[in-house]
């Protein structure tokens, strides 16, 4: 086989389309001819390069452009319309806006005291919403005020008791005043005024009882 013959058959050889006899001849020539071996190697390289070359992606709008140029604007199907409507939903800002809308709605419904499960037509009126919200607001305000005053009373009583408990110890530390011989049964004196005030407090048991109930509810046992 000559160099020229090999050159003409090289592609068929590499594609495996050469007859067996010709292939043997060609391979025998390749064994002895370095230039032809190089040629076949180069040719194989070209084929590999072509095979490895990836296709380019056409621009995404190309099909739409050709459609417009051939059949004109196409009316989108209902599926495409639905898909187009929901297309922006995966975006975070849309999800955030929807979440905020739901949150705001729930606050309004809660403030208006509406029961979503038993909605009536009058519940949908803004006036009802306003009245309900007004009522709820006032109720909450009154509860807060009451709670504040109850706490204040409890605190005052507790501080008085604390004051009284600290009195005997002070009494022990102070020097004993001189007493008249035979002693006295008079309960009045320096301590008498304090005890009287305690008695006054105890007489206000009605209010204390009510308050202690409140204190029991409103404060923890540790306090």
């Amino acid at each position, binding site marked *: 086989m000559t160099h020229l013959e090999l*050159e*003409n*058959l*090289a*592609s*068929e050889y590499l594609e495996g389309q050469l007859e067996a006899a010709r292939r043997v001849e060609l391979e025998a020539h390749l064994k002895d001819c370095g230039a032809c071996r190089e*040629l076949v190697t*180069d*040719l194989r*390289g*070209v*084929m590999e*390069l*072509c*095979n*490895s*070359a*990836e*296709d*380019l*992606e*056409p*621009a995404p709008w*190309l*099909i739409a*452009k*050709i*459609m417009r*140029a*051939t*059949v004109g604007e*196409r009316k989108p199907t209902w599926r495409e319309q639905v898909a187009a409507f929901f297309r922006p939903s995966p975006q975070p800002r849309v999800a955030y806006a929807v979440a905020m809308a739901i949150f705001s709605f729930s606050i309004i419904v809660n403030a208006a005291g509406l029961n979503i499960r038993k909605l009536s037509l009058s519940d949908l009126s803004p006036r009802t919403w306003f009245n309900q919200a007004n009522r709820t607001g006032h109720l909450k305000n009154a509860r807060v005020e009451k709670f504040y005053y109850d706490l204040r009373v409890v605190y005052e009583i507790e501080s008085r008791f604390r004051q009284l408990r600290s009195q005997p110890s002070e009494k022990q530390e102070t020097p004993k005043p001189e007493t008249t011989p035979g002693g006295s049964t008079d309960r009045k004196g320096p301590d008498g005024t304090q005890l009287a005030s305690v008695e006054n407090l105890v007489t206000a048991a009605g209010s204390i009882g009510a308050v202690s109930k409140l204190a029991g509810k409103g404060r923890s046992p540790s306090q």
Partner: protein
Amino acid sequence: MEPDLELVTRCLTGDNYAWEGLLRNHTRKVYNLCYRFTGRPAEAEDLTQEVFIKIFQTLKTYDVAQGAFVTWLNRVARNHLVDHYRRTKKDRITSSIEDEVGGLEEKPSPTVEPIAQLESRERREVLQRALDKLSPDLREAVILRDLQDLDYDEIAQVLGVPEGTVKSRINRGRLELARVLKRMEGMRGSAKAGGQT
């Protein structure tokens, strides 16, 4: 019935969705054929559009007896490209700023690694520059065989020449391509060596 044939039949009855289906099936192939011929993405886009307009206008002349739809499509595209080549032979410019920009705007595929993408792009560009150096006859034969994966008899139908001629053109085209690539490689090597000294 062949899927393309069914779409063609529906197209001829005025079904626009069938036409869109044909476009979806073949736009990529035709675009790449045009790109390999011209080497410019923007020009390839225009040519793809022109080819499909021609297909749309002459769809009723397609005869199943002549072969598969894709062969007919390739023949129409090839004829259009050859006409375009002849028409623009005189005023063809080797490079254009617009195409450079078009090349840069090409969107990377999100699934491929950047380095692999760069290598792939470099290989594609080298191949494209080498293909541009071939004569149109050899170039189209190599493109149809090695880049469009058409059989010899299909290429013979598309080009309207005997199968023997196709084989000869493909072989000569590959040999020429190998020489061009070697020359380019040598030039690149000497340029690198020059840069280092």
